[in-house]
């Protein structure tokens, strides 16, 4: 798979003018791609070719290109963020592909992630879920207690930190056969429910975030585990179990 020889590739890319237009797969050839370049650099090369020919470049989301921001979002050869594991698309190297290969590139597909243009999708549904409860209410007037003053078990602190590494890229939704957002919501719920600061609003948080998730039109989780495998940050399915338990407890308390 790896090597130093430049690669010639065929790209099958979803092109869509705008949200209202119907899109289609379009074939492109790109030559002289270094196996050490990133996937997005390869896309840059393609776009330079297109601009030089006077054609519309392929639009795709990206920002930090360091695997931190969660903006890049391509479905490559049938997998979210491509064939590598625990990486975002911007961290994916071309040495993971073969010279002469045809690479299929599509946008995230979910009713709750409508395509805006080409490979760009609207992920503001995640923002609305976060706004529904993915926070703690803290007085920031200047006399806020230092978080380190509250004792937290190492195990819970580690698990909360792991959950907090979710960058909200949406790969879990994209890869789930049901377009479910439960890994994302589970990570956000677990992140706070494991910490004493988050437990105060725990009941309202889980009920409100799940309600918003359902309103956005995401599917139901059927525990296939695909989201965990494709997640660039390795967010564990354990977080979904935590959310389910939190939801169950909150629902019983609500009824009682």
């Amino acid at each position, binding site marked *: 798979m790896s090597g130093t020889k430049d690669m010639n590739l065929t790209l*099958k890319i*979803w092109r869509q003018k705008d949200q209202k237009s119907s899109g289609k*797969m379009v074939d492109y050839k790109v030559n002289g791609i270094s196996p050490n370049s990133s996937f997005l650099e390869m896309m840059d090369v393609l776009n330079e070719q297109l601009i030089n020919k006077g054609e519309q470049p392929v639009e795709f989301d990206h920002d930090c290109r360091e695997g931190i921001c969660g903006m890049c979002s391509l*479905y490559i*050869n*049938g*997998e979210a963020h491509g*064939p590598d594991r625990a990486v975002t698309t911007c961290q994916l190297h071309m040495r993971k592909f073969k010279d002469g290969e045809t690479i*299929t590139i*599509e946008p995230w*597909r*979910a*009713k*709750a992630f409508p*395509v805006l243009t080409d490979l760009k999708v609207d992920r503001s549904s995640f923002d609305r879920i976060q706004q529904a409860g993915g926070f703690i209410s803290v007085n920031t007037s200047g006399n806020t207690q230092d978080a380190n003053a509250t004792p937290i078990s190492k195990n819970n602190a580690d698990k909360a930190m792991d959950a907090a590494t979710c960058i909200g890229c949406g790969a879990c939704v994209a*890869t789930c*056969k*049901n*377009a*479910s957002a*439960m890994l994302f919501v589970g990570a956000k719920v677990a992140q706070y429910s494991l910490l004493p600061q988050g437990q105060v609003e725990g009941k309202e948080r889980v009920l409100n975030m*799940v*309600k918003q*998730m*359902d309103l956005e*039109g*995401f*599917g*139901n*989780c*059927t*525990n*296939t*585990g*695909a989201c965990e*495998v*494709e997640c660039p940050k390795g967010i564990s*399915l*354990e977080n*979904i*179990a*935590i*959310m*389910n*338990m*939190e*939801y*169950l407890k909150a*629902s019983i308390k609500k009824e009682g």
Partner: protein
Amino acid sequence: MNSSIARKISMALSAFFLMFFLLQHFAINITSLFSSETFNNLSHFMGTNFVIQYVMQPILIFGVTFHFVMGFILELKNNRSRNVKYFKNNGAANSTWMSRNMIISGLLILTFMGLHFYDFWIPELKIKFIEGDMSGLIDPDNMDSGLRYFTELQHKFVSPTRVAIYCVAFIFLSLHLLHGFSSAFQSMGANNKYTKALSKFGVAYSILIPLGFIIIALFHHFNH
């Protein structure tokens, strides 16, 4: 029941009930390999006991119906969550066939249950409630004729085609359980030091119980 997690939990609860029922069904059927008398007595007890017939059986019918209906509802809702499908999707790269195709294994099990009801349940209803024979005897007019259940069981497994259908159905039941067992516990929020052990127990249950039913079918086919 309007939230996605509530639907997951209800699916899990009905699955627990069905898995418990399957275990007791197996426990009774396996006795047919060792003692026709025990099998006959247990079958007669199950078929005539008031609590089992008029309390547990309706709950079972509700459980089975609920599990299938909710399964279909979830499948339809989930399909609608992705209105444009992928041009290329490599599901095998990140999940098992069983987990992605519960609706297929579920539909095959449902089809098999149709045959199973035709073979055993409908004839039972006919004998008991249409013909009015609650004796459980081969010849209701002859008290010495013995109970009929073991004979009926053997008779059903004479046909190699029927035995083959039963075996294939139990393979799909095994595939369904291999994902469903641990999935049900995950849906209920199981997340503690016993979760891994529970998962391993689930794999053993999912293989051994259907395998046991296959052995019962084959045993009676070759020993009738």
